[in-house]
């Protein structure tokens, strides 16, 4: 009987091992950010830092985003004008693969990832699917720990996402923008361009920047 209890207790420990959900590391930009690509137009500078290294995505997002087909780009926007305000919205960022920058008919565009937490195609749920399906008995404990991690990864994606904002003269902003799907396990920056449309709030004039990501 004692043996049974010991075995049961030991099994429980195994199921619960690794269940803690630590907060994921805050992003610290490399100094100097050697992987940044920059462009400037109408007094606005945009710097893009694509995450193509799996280790880097694991460090800041706790997943291998490259293997999962999620493109992560750190974006920094600086308004260097003295009297213009620009609308900076994630919906105006487009990933154009395979030389599509010269052919902007729309059929080669990759959509920005849907907002995390909305619908089934969020970055984290794409990775894990429904963590509860098929679980049962002690498998339930196992999936419970997975669900904790699942939700922290999803929350971390949301927390690090770039805000939509008006950028006043002299101000800067930064954050992450996510695109999916891209080819899993490959360098998705090869022959890829990011197109960004910025609208000046008073004149409604639009400025477009095309920033090649390829090395």
């Amino acid at each position: 009987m004692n043996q049974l209890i010991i075995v049961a207790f030991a099994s429980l420990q195994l199921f619960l091992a690794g269940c803690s959900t630590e907060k994921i590391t805050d992003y610290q930009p490399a100094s100097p950010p050697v992987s940044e690509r920059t462009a400037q137009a109408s007094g606005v500078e945009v710097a893009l830092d694509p995450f193509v290294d799996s280790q880097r995505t694991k460090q800041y997002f706790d997943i291998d985003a490259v293997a999962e087909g999620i493109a992560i780009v750190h974006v920094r926007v600086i308004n260097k004008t003295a009297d213009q305000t620009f609308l900076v919205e994630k919906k105006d960022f487009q990933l154009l693969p395979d030389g599509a920058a010269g052919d902007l008919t729309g059929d080669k565009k990759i959509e920005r990832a849907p907002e995390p937490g909305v619908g089934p195609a969020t970055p984290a749920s794409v990775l894990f699917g429904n963590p509860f399906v098929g679980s049962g008995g002690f498998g339930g404990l196992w999936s419970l720990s997975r669900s904790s991690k699942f939700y922290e990864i999803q929350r971390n994606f949301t927390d690090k996402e770039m805000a939509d904002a008006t950028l006043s003269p002299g101000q800067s902003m930064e954050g992450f923008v996510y695109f999916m799907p891209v080819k899993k396990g490959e360098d998705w920056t090869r022959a890829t361009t990011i197109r960004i449309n910025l609208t000046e709030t008073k004149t409604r004039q639009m400025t477009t920047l095309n920033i090649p990501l390829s090395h």
Partner: protein
Amino acid sequence: MKSMRLIVQIVFVVLALSLTSGCTHLKTVSAQPTALPAGQLLPHHVALVLDQDLANYKNKYSRGEDNFVDALGVPLQDYARQVAAKSFQQVDVVPSVEKAAALASADLILIPQAVKSDISIPVWAWGNDNLTLVVKWTAEDRASQNTVWLRTITANASEPMGSVFSANKNQRILYQKVFDDLSLKTYNAFQTAPELRGNQH
């Protein structure tokens, strides 16, 4: 001896069933108004749009087989009213953008929109619940309906999950903290926006 073995087996079966049976828990969240610092009242008559989308916003998540639905509409509306009233000279609450556009005395239309919320829940009682709530504010010139100012506010809060005896109280604290963070960040965003300081757009 046989009865002990039977008891152990029953306990395991009950534990297994409790982990697989799921249900949905509905809860209405409440939060107290946040103490905001004294600042200037911005020179605008604002039509604040509190629409059905905001009123119906819910934070939905799962734990194990259980689903949780936390209704945030009331505290979101209260937060929006409080921050707007503390920031602008005059605020009229309207239920839609159309009603706001028809309010001829207002010069700005202010639209808060709950974008998303994510919560991560630890397995252990001593671990922290982490909550992120994102609200987008848009200020439009009423006459032209062009966007003059926009800001997505991301609020965060952490609180130990607590035991079966303290979990409800701790989650109330968690939501209070996130609304405090949201209110202060929103208020500061209004106060520091050059686009909202003047009355010319």
